[in-house]
């Protein structure tokens, strides 16, 4: 039960973020900064989508990169080969990814923990192989070029449009996550995260729950991938189906805090900007990899629950009022309470 002050704080934060986000295209000094903004938003959508599975069920997937890649290629191929209008293709592409996610989830969600991680990694590598080898259909290592949805539009304008598109997508993803989070469905998913067998014996159809949420996650991931394809235009299997993509999603979600609605977003803002910064900073060296790695390691070691929870804990330590909501009672008191609950209520002071 979040305290009033906490609610207020969150509210303000949301409004502030929304305002800045909406104004960003105007504030951005040049198209490049705007494009960076788009990349960061894309990360935010991706890691939020990832968090449907990772956050609720605790299944860590390093393979969501593959789903994004499928979304991208799906959209791209539907436009180039299927001749669909760009945004119809986007929707269709995401739908297809969701459909594909059903068998994938059916196979992968049967195993837990590390085995699942391995399967998810395998998913990326296998899709990479397929899209590299099946050149006749996918264009192989030469990549696939996705025609512009707004032909002739100059680049800065093009960026502005897509910035708002990504923003909208983010909003939708967050809303859905929030809905599930507060729902009984969500509670069931969290139970799975804690102890799957136990949840099962309490009557939760765990497999169905996992599968549903996995498909939802895949759908949003696919959308993000597809939108990226429309924006970026050039798809290359090596980068579409890379473990790094999936790992960035995990990193961001973890950094922000997987149990928080805005965790992945916060993570994306930090990591995304960091990545860009490292790129500019050590442009000519692979040190940006080192920096990323170190960042991830630090998070895992010192903030395993993420930034937001860490902040929360800090606040709680500063304000002793909320300290130990756990009363201590002797056997005597327990015995006394035992009979009539109403005492118990009155004792809650």
């Amino acid at each position, binding site marked *: 039960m979040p305290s009033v002050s906490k609610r207020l704080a969150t509210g303000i934060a949301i409004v502030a973020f929304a305002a800045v986000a909406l104004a960003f295209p105007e504030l951005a000094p040049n198209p490049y900064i705007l494009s960076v903004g788009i990349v960061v938003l894309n990360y935010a959508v991706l890691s939020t989508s990832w968090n449907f599975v990772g956050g609720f069920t605790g299944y860590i997937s390093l393979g969501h990169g593959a789903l994004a890649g499928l979304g991208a290629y799906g959209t791209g191929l539907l436009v180039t080969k299927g001749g669909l209008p760009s945004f119809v293709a986007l929707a269709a592409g995401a739908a297809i990814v969701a459909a594909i996610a059903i068998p994938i989830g059916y196979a992968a969600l049967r195993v837990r923990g590390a085995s699942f991680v391995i399967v998810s990694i395998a998913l990326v590598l296998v899709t990479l192989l397929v899209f590299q080898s099946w050149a006749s259909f996918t264009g192989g290592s030469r990549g696939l070029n996705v025609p512009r949805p707004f032909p002739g539009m100059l680049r800065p304008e093009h960026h502005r449009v897509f910035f708002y598109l990504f923003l909208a997508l983010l909003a939708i993803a967050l809303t859905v996550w929030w809905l599930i989070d507060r729902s009984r469905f969500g509670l069931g998913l969290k139970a799975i995260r804690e102890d799957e067998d136990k949840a099962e014996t309490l009557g939760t159809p765990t497999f169905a729950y996992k599968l549903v949420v996995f498909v939802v996650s895949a759908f949003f991931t696919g959308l993000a991938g597809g939108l990226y394809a429309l924006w970026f235009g050039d798809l290359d299997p090596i980068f579409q189906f890379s473990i790094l993509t999936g790992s960035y999603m995990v990193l961001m979600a973890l950094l922000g805090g997987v149990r928080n609605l805005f965790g992945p977003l916060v993570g994306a803002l930090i990591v995304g900007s960091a990545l860009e910064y490292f790129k500019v900073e050590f442009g000519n060296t692979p040190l940006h990899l080192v920096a990323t790695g170190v960042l991830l390691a630090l998070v895992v070691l010192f903030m395993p629950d993420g930034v937001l929870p860490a902040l929360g804990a800090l606040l709680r330590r500063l304000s002793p009022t909320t300290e130990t909501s756990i009363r*201590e009672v002797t056997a005597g008191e327990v015995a006394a309470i035992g009979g009539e609950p109403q005492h118990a209520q009155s004792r809650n002071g």
Partner: protein
Amino acid sequence: MPELELVDVQAGYGRAAPVLRGLSVAVPAGTIVCLVGPNGAGKSTVLKVASGLLAPRAGKILVGGVDVAGQGPQRMLANGVAHVLQGHSVFPEMTVAENVLLGAYTLKDKAVVGDRTEFVKSLFPVVADRWTSLAGLLSGGQQKQVEFARSLMVDPKVVLLDEPSMGLDPKATTTVFEQVVRMRDAGTAVLLVEQNARRALETADLGCVLDLGRVHISGPAAQLVADPQLAELYLGGRPAEPRP
């Protein structure tokens, strides 16, 4: 001088409020001290502190008169303090054999290990019968038996037993209590935590009732069993009727 003595021990977990608030117990050699108390009173915590699994925040832990507070489990074992955990602490993916023999990890003398192995096999049939199967696949009670057997592989000066009879069937329970008595008679200092409180107190020499991390009352075990208030709050319903 008691073999094991805790003096004004304060202890707790992480940053949370203390669980033990200035608790003192003494366990003389050749004595069974029985620790009873409600769930969450801090009994297991006492044992963890005594065996070095949990460092006390304050207070003394004397083994043979020497303050060993803050030493880790390994040093404690070297000091002659052995601890059998509550719940289930077998090595699930190792065979019963490996589990039992690991009990003698610190023993170098092959002959001794051999004898002890035979002894525990004879005590607990399941150990002998399931010698080569993975401990994790045994039933709850069988696992407890294996654990207890493991603890019998060494003979320490002080034994800390955390509810050794939990989940055991009556026969095994009897065996366990017999062994506890045997240890005592062999001069070992035994600190016994039990929720099977009456039976435990009947076996023990001294009793000690713990509540909210403090000693509520302590004294000769027999005396505590007889106490009606204790019965109501800590030992359960009717005072013990002598069993057939």
